[in-house]
């Protein structure tokens, strides 16, 4: 409980997260545990971005796995097929996803509610179909290899280095997200959620802010995808699977909408969940669905805000 209280003051929370990230490897004894931790961090990166869009600005996306998968494929294709150095193909992939997100955002974000959900769902599925069927470029359903990230001529395979790299990137992501929310831009985003018309009449260009945060969250999903590609060494169209879009949304809803630390905790829980349900894929999906339902019915604000309220003196 004491730790949760700390999490309510943003800067202190950041230090706590940094300490946890730094201390966690003390508990790891084999590469597999690092591998699981890396996937936790990558999902957390997506969840923090998606929470900016969903939790703060109130705009749903059921297509973020599409951006994740697309980022992974663009960097894989550029580096494997066209020989780009990985340190160039990675940012290039982010730029490509940013441009795509920007182009689709204006028409899509004029929609709201169910229509927005359907449009983003369609977009995600479209991306995954293209990745699967454009076999000449993407390798089709089998996927393709992605060259490793190297320093000089030394390729990095060691999970410990990947853990460190991704932990630092996640920490930066969390820091930037906290800053953004605690700024005039963040207030404008939250006002878009609270009352679009009220935001508009005090001068907030609501569509512009929705587009901005959609692009930001898409780029964060793509960043996680890009890192996944070079970390695992191969990409498959499954990365863009619509199921992952649902998982990302569940992480945000479970941890708590409009709570950056909630997004982190949601990512931890949902990524570790399959570890406890190994071998039974169907069971995993059922539990995912069950969690989503239970959270929406019994604690619609999510874990972190609900626990925060239960504490003495807590409101948020």
């Amino acid at each position, binding site marked *: 409980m004491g730790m949760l209280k700390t999490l309510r003051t943003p800067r202190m929370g950041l230090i706590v997260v940094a300490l946890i990230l730094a201390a966690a490897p003390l508990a790891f004894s084999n590469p597999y545990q690092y591998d699981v931790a890396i996937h936790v961090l990558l999902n957390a990166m997506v969840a923090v971005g998606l929470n900016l869009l969903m939790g703060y600005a109130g705009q749903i996306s059921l297509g973020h796995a599409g951006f994740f998968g697309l980022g992974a494929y663009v960097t894989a294709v550029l580096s494997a097929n066209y020989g780009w150095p990985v340190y160039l193909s990675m940012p290039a992939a982010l730029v490509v996803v940013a441009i795509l997100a920007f182009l689709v955002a204006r028409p899509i974000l004029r929609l709201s509610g169910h229509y927005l959900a359907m449009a983003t769902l369609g977009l995600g599925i479209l991306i995954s179909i293209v990745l699967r069927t454009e076999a000449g470029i993407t390798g089709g359903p089998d996927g393709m290899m992605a060259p490793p990230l190297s320093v000089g001529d030394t390729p990095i395979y060691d999970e410990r280095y990947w853990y460190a790299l991704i932990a630092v990137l996640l920490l930066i992501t969390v820091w930037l997200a906290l*800053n953004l929310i605690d700024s*005039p831009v963040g*207030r*404008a985003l939250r006002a878009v959620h*609270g009352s679009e018309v*009220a935001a*508009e*009449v*005090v001068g907030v260009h609501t569509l512009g802010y929705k587009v901005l945060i959609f692009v930001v969250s898409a780029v964060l999903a793509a960043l996680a995808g890009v890192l996944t590609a070079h970390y695992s060494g191969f990409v498959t169209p499954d990365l863009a699977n619509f199921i992952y879009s649902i998982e990302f949304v569940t992480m945000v809803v479970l941890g708590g909408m409009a709570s950056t630390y909630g997004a982190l905790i949601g990512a931890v829980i949902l990524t570790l969940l399959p570890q406890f349900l190994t071998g039974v894929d169907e069971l995993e999906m059922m539990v995912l669905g069950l969690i989503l339902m239970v959270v929406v019915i019994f604690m619609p604000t999510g874990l972190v805000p609900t626990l925060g309220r239960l504490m003495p003196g807590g*409101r948020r």
Partner: protein
Amino acid sequence: MNAILECRELTKSFGGVDAVADLSFSIERGHIHSIIGPNGAGKTTLINLLTGIYTPTKGSILLSDQDTRGLAPYKLARRGLGRTFQNLQVCMNMSAIENVMVGRHLRLNRRFIPSLLRLKSVRTGDRDCRERAAELMRFTGLEKQIDAHPGEMSYGALKRLEIARALAAEPELLFLDEPAAGLNANETHAIGALIREVAERGVTVVLVEHDMRLVMDISDSVLVLNYGRRLAQGTPQSVQNDPEVVSAYLGGA
């Protein structure tokens, strides 16, 4: 002539029905102006036209002699227009003071990269913004609710909160859409006093209101609408004595 707002042959049709028809009038800078009329007279449609929520079917709206046709509400805000809402539009996902702080949006450094890095200019701007917002909450009689959440505030307090938010943008022209709706006599009297103080600060106030006593008490000029058309415009006294106005309200021929 010192009109801050002028409408020329303004018309808004909804499926063939003219909610506002051929309406021409102007509003002088300064003072308190009221727009009144029986239910369905087109008051809300008019305020939505003037604040850019609707686009006119015909006619023009001039704000300080500049045509505002096709300008979105957020662009009108940049030209000094503010408003409150008849049915409250308070952001329940933010604290009371944050609601007021949103009102200062246009006055703050709101560029993306400085916000992302929370540069010093953003931090100091935000600190000042919070102070100004608290000041406005005191001005609007919300000094006890500075740390409150809108969920725990009364209806009357939320109406004042909307006024504080609108004032935070430092508008030249402020539309108040039924500020006294749902308030009791005491609260209505208090809100009338507040509106006077707002006008004394140099803001041109346009009031759309049902409460006749409030309107007649505080207005310098009154525009009366009926069936989307102008029925009369003038001082409260002249309007009250206008036979056409009396018959429209009392349902005479």
